[in-house]
C-alpha cells in the first residue's frame, strides 16, 4: 500500500470557499442512470451547475433507507439498464466539466462489496469522486471498507441521526472525513421535516464533538424556506427527493432539465439567503 499524498481534500476546499462567501453549501442528490443514462448525464450536469457538492446515487435493488421517490429512481435506473460502469462514467463526465465541484458516491454496501472495496475505490477515485457515503456501513463495520477508501484518498462521509448517542457521535466522527451528514429525522428519505429547533440543537451538539468537521443536514428539505432555515445553522443543506421528484413529472429530457435547473437555482439562492 502506497502512502497517500497528504493534500487537503476537495470537499474541505468546498466548505472553505462557502465559508468565505458566508453561506452554507448546497448538496444536491440524484440517482445515476435515472431515468436512463443519457438523460441522467444532462440532469447531473444541470444540477452540478447549482450545487457545491453533488451526491451521485448508485442504484440498488433494495434501497432500504429510501422513501418512495428515491426507490422509484433506483428502479427506473436499473430498469433502464444502468450498470456500475455507467455510474463511474457519469461521475467522470461531471468531474471533467466541474473541476472544483465536490462529488460523493452514495449507496448501499452490497454494490461496492460485490466489486470488492479496493477495486471500487480505485475506480471511484479515477472517475473523480471525492468521497463515499454508504448508508448501511456504520462505523462498527468500517473494517470492510476503511482501508481501501483511505488507500485511494476517498473521504468517508458518515451519517448521524436523532437516535445517535454521544458515544455513537464520537465513533462516527472518529472515522469520518469530508463531512458529517446529519439525517434530520427518524425516517426514510422524502419524509416531512421535523421540528427545526430540535434539529438545530442536535447539529450544534454534533459540532461540539465533530472537531471542525463540517455538518450537512438532509432528509426532508423540500422548500427554499426550509433550505434557508437549515442553512442558518449547518455547513450544508442536502436536497434529494425534491430534485429527484422532477424526473417522473415530464417525459422529455428538455422539460425535466428545465424544471430541475430552476428548482436547483432557487435552492442555491435559498442556502445563501439570510434566515
Amino acid at each position, binding site marked *: 500500500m502506497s502512502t497517500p499524498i497528504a493534500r487537503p481534500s476537495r470537499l474541505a476546499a468546498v466548505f472553505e470557499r462557502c465559508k468565505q462567501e458566508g453561506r452554507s453549501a448546497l448538496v444536491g442528490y440524484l440517482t445515476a442512470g435515472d431515468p436512463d443514462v443519457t438523460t441522467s448525464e444532462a440532469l447531473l450536469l444541470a444540477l452540478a451547475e447549482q450545487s457545491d457538492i453533488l451526491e451521485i446515487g448508485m442504484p*440498488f435493488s433494495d434501497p432500504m433507507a429510501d422513501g418512495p421517490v428515491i426507490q422509484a429512481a433506483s428502479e427506473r435506473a436499473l430498469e433502464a439498464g444502468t450498470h456500475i460502469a455507467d455510474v463511474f462514467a457519469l461521475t467522470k463526465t461531471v468531474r471533467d466539466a466541474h473541476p472544483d465541484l465536490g462529488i460523493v458516491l452514495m449507496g448501499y454496501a452490497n454494490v461496492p462489496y460485490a466489486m470488492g472495496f479496493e477495486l471500487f475505490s480505485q475506480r471511484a477515485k479515477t472517475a473523480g469522486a471525492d468521497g463515499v457515503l454508504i448508508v448501511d456501513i*456504520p462505523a462498527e463495520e468500517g473494517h470492510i471498507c476503511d482501508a481501501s477508501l483511505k488507500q485511494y484518498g476517498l473521504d468517508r462521509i458518515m451519517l448521524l441521526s436523532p437516535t445517535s448517542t454521544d458515544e455513537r457521535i464520537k465513533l*462516527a466522527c472518529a472515522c469520518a472525513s469530508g463531512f458529517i451528514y446529519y439525517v434530520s429525522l427518524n425516517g426514510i428519505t422524502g419524509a416531512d421535516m421535523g421540528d427545526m429547533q430540535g434539529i438545530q440543537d442536535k447539529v450544534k451538539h454534533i459540532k461540539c464533538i465533530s472537531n471542525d468537521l463540517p455538518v450537512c443536514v438532509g432528509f426532508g428539505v423540500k422548500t427554499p424556506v426550509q433550505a434557508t432555515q437549515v442553512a442558518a445553522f449547518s455547513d450544508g443543506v442536502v436536497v434529494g427527493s425534491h430534485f429527484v421528484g422532477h424526473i417522473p413529472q415530464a417525459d422529455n429530457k428538455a422539460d425535466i432539465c428545465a424544471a430541475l435547473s430552476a428548482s436547483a437555482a432557487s435552492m442555491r439562492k435559498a442556502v445563501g439567503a439570510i434566515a
Partner: protein
Amino acid sequence: MYNLDITHAPDEGGHFGKFGGRFAAETLMQPLKDIEEAFYEAWADEGFHAERLDLLKNYVGRATPLYHAKQLTAAVGGAQIYLKREDLTHTGAHKINNTIGQGLLARRMGKKRVIAETGAGQHGVATATVAAMFGMQCDIYMGREDMARQMPNVLRMRLLGANVIPVDSGTATLKDAVNEALRNWVATCEDTFYIFGTAAGPHPYPLLVRQFHTVIGQEARAQCLDQAGRLPDVAVACVGGGSNAMGLLHPFRDDASVRLVAVEAAGYGLESGQLAASLAKGKAGILHGNLTFLLEDDEGQVQGTHSISAGLDYPGVGPELAYMFEQGRLELDACTDDDALEALQLLTRKEGIIPALESSHAIAAGARIAKSMAADKIVLINLSGRGDKDMNTVFKHLGWVEDAS
C-alpha cells in the same frame, strides 16, 4: 429441561466468522443496541425464563412430540425417520417460539406496538397472536404476491386484530416485506419493536431468534435419547432464513456424530435460475443488515427468487448458517417444487400428517437421505409447520381447483 447457556455466541459485533454483523442505517444502530442489551439482561433473568417457558408449555403446547414415523420409514425404506412435530404448536408452526420470546422482550422494553415481515404468513400470524395476547398494536408487512398465495393466513392475522400491509415494491415477496418493515421501523423505533421472523437480519436478531428456537433441538435431542436410546445420525431442516434450522440444529452442533443438513428451495431446479437456494447458488453479500450468502447478479443487485413455498422464497440466509456451511459443519441439500409437492402427499397418505410446503422440502430431502442409509440409522426431520395455509396452492397443482392465486 432446557439448557439456557449461550454457546457458539457471535463476537461482540454479532459476527459469525466473517458473516453477520450489523450493517444497518445509523438511525437503527441504537435501537438495535437497546434490543441487544434488553435481550442479554432478560436472558440472565430467571423471571423472564419462568414466564417464557410457562407460555411455551401452557399456551404454545410444548414440548412438541417427537414422532417415529414408521409408515413413512417403511414406504421409503432405509433409516428410521423421526419427525419433530412443530406443526402441533399453537398457530401451527415453529414461528411462535420466537414471537413469544420477542413479544416478552417488547413488553419488557415498554413498547406499545410491534411490526413484522412475513412470507408464508406463519410468522405474521404468530406475531399477531402474541400482540393480541399482550394487547399491543400490530402491523404486518407482506408482499402482495404472498398475500394471494397465503390468503388463509392473511385472514387469520386480520381476525387477530393485526393490520396487514401489502407490499408492492420490488418483487412483492418476503425480501420486499423486510425492506418495508425496516422503513417503517426507522420512523417508529421509539415506540415500536420489530419482531424479526428468522435467524437473519442485523445483530442481535440472528442470535435472539436462534436462542428462542433452540427449544426445538433441545427437546428433540432428549426425546431421541429417550425413545431410541441414542442420538440421531442426521438432523434435517428446511431453510428460508434459518430459524427452524438453527432451532433444530444448534443443540446438535457439538455432537460430532450427528450430520446437520439444511434443505434449500430449488424451485424449478438448481440449474433453472428460478430458485431460492442462497447457500448452494449465492455468494457473500450484504442485505438486511448482515453479511451472508445472497442470490445476486455480478454487480450486487439482489435477484428475484422463486419457490412454491412463500416461506423459503428469500434471496438470503441466516449468517450463522452461512458460517456453519463455510466451516464444513453444515451439509446442503435442495428440493424442487415438485419434490416438495410429492413429499407433502407422501407424508399425508402414509402418516395422516399434512405438512407445510416449507417443511415438505425437509421431508423430501430427509426421506432421500434415509433411503440411502441402513435401517438401524436415525434421520431426524424438523416438521416445522402444518399445511393448512397451503391447500389452495396444492389443490391448484393437483388440478383440483382453478388457478387459486
